[in-house]
């Protein structure tokens, strides 16, 4: 054939090309290719690694998660347990100090981190799931379906977020997963707008028409052709949503409409400690620091993913 097997990347040498007879008839010696083709996953990973802040964010987030789950399990003080030291400043015994009732603030913060992260991940998961399906269906069918579905979305978007979340959050009680559902029920509308926007441009692509010409049903086109192509935008959006959800949960708990005692969350810890800001500042600053660390690291990860998931980059480079 006049064409090389690797069409677009002519500089690429496929790793194994044995069996190709040479003119002398002797099998060619195993040659190490100078440029190796990389798989899609390797490329994404590589591009992500080049984004230093994203890598730093990922490291910080992994450390925080480990600390929250493994750390709290091995730490000598349990969450909610009272110690003899009351209002102790940070020391080796109590890295984050203790509150006026003698509870170890380090154990409290770790527990709060767990709950806040769980809420955030659940919110991101559900709002992405619902929002993606909603937006993709609206964008694909267009017309009246689109109009009706997007007006519903608009309605949700006009709701004053904090007020409604506070009201609903308060009425479902302080259970963390119910609060996640409340927040997800308000955030899916943002995701559906993103998904609809991407699908609107994708559905005009010829491969969608080709899929229809092959006899694919509407549901199949949405699930197998449109959503996977919109996935990069959706993943990035979901990542950022984790950070946004952490902040909203914090705000809710701070206002007293989120997670309630006996459980705790980072927002609740900040809220409880605000009166102690001048006398025992460690109670306030450590949970605050954790909130900032989580939100910041996730935003950097989202940034890195955005760059890494852009598929229109050459395969063999650097």
């Amino acid at each position, binding site marked *: *054939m*006049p*064409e090389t*097997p*690797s*069409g*677009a*990347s002519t500089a690429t040498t*496929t790793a194994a090309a044995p069996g190709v007879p040479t003119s002398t008839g002797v099998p060619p010696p195993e040659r190490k290719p100078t440029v190796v083709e990389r798989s*899609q996953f390797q490329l994404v990973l590589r591009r992500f690694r080049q984004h230093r802040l994203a890598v730093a964010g990922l490291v910080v987030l992994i450390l925080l998660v480990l600390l929250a789950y493994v750390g709290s399990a091995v730490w000598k003080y349990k969450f909610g347990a009272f110690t003899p030291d009351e209002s102790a400043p940070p020391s080796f015994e109590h890295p984050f100090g203790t509150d006026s009732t003698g509870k170890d603030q380090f154990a409290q913060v770790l527990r709060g981190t767990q709950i806040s992260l769980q809420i955030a991940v659940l919110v991101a998961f559900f709002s992405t799931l619902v929002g993606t399906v909603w937006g993709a269906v609206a964008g694909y069918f267009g*017309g009246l379906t689109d109009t009706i579905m997007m007006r519903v979305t608009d309605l949700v978007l006009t709701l004053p977020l904090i007020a409604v979340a506070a009201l609903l959050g308060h009425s479902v009680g302080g259970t963390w997963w119910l609060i996640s559902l409340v927040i997800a029920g308000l955030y899916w509308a943002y995701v559906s707008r993103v998904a609809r926007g991407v699908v609107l441009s994708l559905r005009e*692509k*010829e*491969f969608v*028409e*080709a*899929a*229809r*010409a*092959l*006899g*694919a*049903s*509407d549901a199949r086109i949405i699930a*197998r*052709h449109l959503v*996977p*192509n919109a*996935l990069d935008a959706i993943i990035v959006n979901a990542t950022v949503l984790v950070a946004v959800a952490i902040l909203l949960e914090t705000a809710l708990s701070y206002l007293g409409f989120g997670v309630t005692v006996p459980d705790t969350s980072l927002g609740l810890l900040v809220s409880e400690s605000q009166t102690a800001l001048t006398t025992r500042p460690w109670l306030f600053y450590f949970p605050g620091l954790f909130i900032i660390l989580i939100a910041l690291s996730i935003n950097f990860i989202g940034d890195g993913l955005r760059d890494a998931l852009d*598929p*229109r980059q050459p*395969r063999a480079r650097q």
Partner: protein
Amino acid sequence: MTGNSPASEVVLEVADLTVGFPSDDGLVQAVRGVSYGVRRGEVLGIVGESGAGKSVTSLAVMGLLPRSAQVSGSVRFRGRQLLGAADAELNTVRGRNISMIFQDPMTSLNPVYSIGFQVAEAIRAHHSVSKAAARNRAAELLELVHIPNPRQRLDSYPHELSGGMRQRVVIAIAMANDPDVIIADEPTTALDVTVQAQIMESLQTAQQQTGAAMVLITHDLGVIAGQADRVLVMYAGKLVEVGTAEDVFYTPRMPYTVGLLGSVPQLDRPGTRLISIPGAPPSVLHLPAGCPFAPRCPLVVARCTEKEPVLEPTTGPEHLAACHRSAALVGAAPGDVFDASASAVVESGRDA
């Protein structure tokens, strides 16, 4: 080609197909009463310039027109009415019995799936076979359309392949289910001239392997000449000449066909001036009365602007042309009909 096989049953029959698109300025009549039949194993070429209604005709056959389109007439596949059928019913025919090859291979493959997956998906959409079996079949199909190292290529993504390779993958997908009709909508237009011959070869392989009838839509007369058994010439949404490839190429009976043929460079007749057809196709929004080609036709007479000609037999019962003056074309060369130094006419035609 395999044109006159004994089983010359008509697999796809289009009758009086009319397609209109409502617009702010009125109804755009993209297709106006097109009728044709394709027999088993036959290659039917449809030629015409951009906007003649070639693609809309084939999209109507597949039921892929936007919902706003107003379609009437009939499209029958083996006697089964496709026009107006429900999507669910159409889905059993699309890809299985009638498959389509699109113009631009750069966009007609899904960028997020490997080509092996996409070929296998086409097979599994209409046959319940295992993934492994579908993958094996995919490799065979890729080999049939002359893709080197098909096994290794299965895991490639569309962006790793050149345009020609991608179009071959599209052809492999089109032949995956042994369809009865393959519609190729300008399959070589988006490709390099050097690759076009290879693609046509792959198409021919696909057509012979599946024994399918093929509808080949193009504006490249060279492509048609080499492949088609019968040719339809379209102009302003209508068929203006129908016949076997020999009829249309050697004894054209419609000035538009004559002009098209005369505008193709021919290596065996060096030194012949190429002719150009003056003017531009009429707006399908406001069609002139009479023959739509009349404003550009050198043989125009009064009758042409009054009454639109219908398809009538000319040199034989199978060779039809829609022209009042087809008798005047007997034995005429393109240079005689169209003024070879037509540049002046072109200018005046544009001014008009």
